């Protein structure tokens, strides 16, 4: 389907940069606009990776939760088993995959606060979280102002 989503994002950035930005004289509005353009550029690269990232994360999170079960309370173990039995949603159902991700990460948020985690489990948790952070496709695009003068800006 052309233009693709990426092509449309790319084109939108180009138009904002070359047509709109030169006409924005207000410094606050220009800062906001620059931030939005930078974020659209990030999205162009990130967007194709998001669905695969969430699917992979569901598999990795469930695997970690199952490995943590010996250190968890019975009630939480039961809910992890229920989530495991539910299985992965259809690959084409993006909303269901996102919802499952939310469920599994909520279970993990609870599990990582267990008082009975062994050093080995802690290492597994941190490795999982660091790997996930490294693969997360959407990134904050810093666009902080460098120098702000205290004198009025016109």
């Amino acid at each position, binding site marked *: 389907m052309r233009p693709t989503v990426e092509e449309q994002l790319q084109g939108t950035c180009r138009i904002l940069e070359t047509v709109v930005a030169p006409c924005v004289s207000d410094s606050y509005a220009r800062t906001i606009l620059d*931030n939005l353009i930078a974020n659209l550029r990030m999205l162009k690269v990130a967007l194709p990776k998001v669905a695969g990232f969430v699917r992979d994360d569901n598999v990795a999170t469930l695997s970690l939760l199952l490995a943590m079960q010996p250190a968890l309370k019975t009630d939480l173990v039961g809910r992890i088993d229920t989530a495991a039995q539910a299985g992965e949603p259809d690959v084409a159902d993006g909303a269901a995959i996102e919802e499952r991700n939310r469920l599994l990460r909520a279970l*993990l948020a609870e599990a990582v606060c267990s008082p009975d985690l062994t050093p080995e489990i802690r290492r597994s948790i941190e490795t999982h979280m660091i790997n996930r952070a490294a693969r997360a496709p959407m990134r904050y695009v810093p666009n902080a102002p460098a*120098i702000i003068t205290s004198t009025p800006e016109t």
Partner: protein
Amino acid sequence: MSTPAQQVVEGLKALMCDAVPSAREITFAGLSRAAGGLSRENWSFDASWTDASGTHSYPLMLMRDAAGTLLTTERSREFHVLKALKGSAVAAPVVHWMDPDGRFLGAPSVVMERVSGSCDYMVLNGSRPLPERLKLAHDFLELMANMQKFDWQLHGLGERLGVPQKSPAKTELHQWEAEYRRVQIEPHPELDYVLNWLDNNAPDAEAIVLVHGDFKPGNALIEDNVITAKLDWETAHLGDPLEDLGWITNPVRKSEHQIAGHWERAHIVAAYSKLTGRKVSDAALTWWNVFSCWKLSVIQLTAVHEFVSERYNRVFQTPSWLYRPMFHMMSGAR
């Protein structure tokens, strides 16, 4: 329909008439919104008026809460801290008026003196020669030490800000945990994991001092080679002396606070001990370093929350870049 600038002028006039009932011939010149304020709107202007005591003319700044913000803050906190600091060894703007509930300006606001100087987030690693940057780095630390020596009890800040009833570390943590829960729009097991560690390892404080809460070069004005004012006191509170020190020795913000090879964690701690006479526990400081990263994460989540609520005009993401350094520091502290 009036422009935002016209609304500000009207609000300022109403605020001033309320604060100085005898004021007449009020003029506000050169009103403009300064770029940069992430948590609030900063408006610069020159005010003049005549009242019972004579004619006055001041360069002023209006700080007004933005519709969406990175920090949930209280203007009255900033107002009372600045009033208390007037005439002290801590360089800070003189505060004039406050609109605590936004009755006049539509959002909580404070009007203060406009101090000369520039704000440069990266001044310690900018183009100035190394000796100048080192002097500024030391001056920033001395400013922090002066702030910590400030007699908050004598100036009634205990009543205004609240004195922590338990460990200041626990008090701060629980306040920021409440903020975390307020703005959380999805599960963050990483932040719950760190929160759990922070809760189980909170240190006791050696003293209760005035804490800035966001101590950085980006919150200060510099003219030539002198710090003319420390700004942005809206997160000031009474707490642990190591809190601000933990903020500036936080490894993820080295580029703002440290100078490689010359002004790093060990240098800063040694200089701080010399200035204050306090011994710094490395474990306690590491706790505050982790807390700083965790708090920074919550601030970013606040921005995400405000963005999706259509009240904030910048796009932020989940702060996943902070997880690895937090885990690394926690591992070193075990």
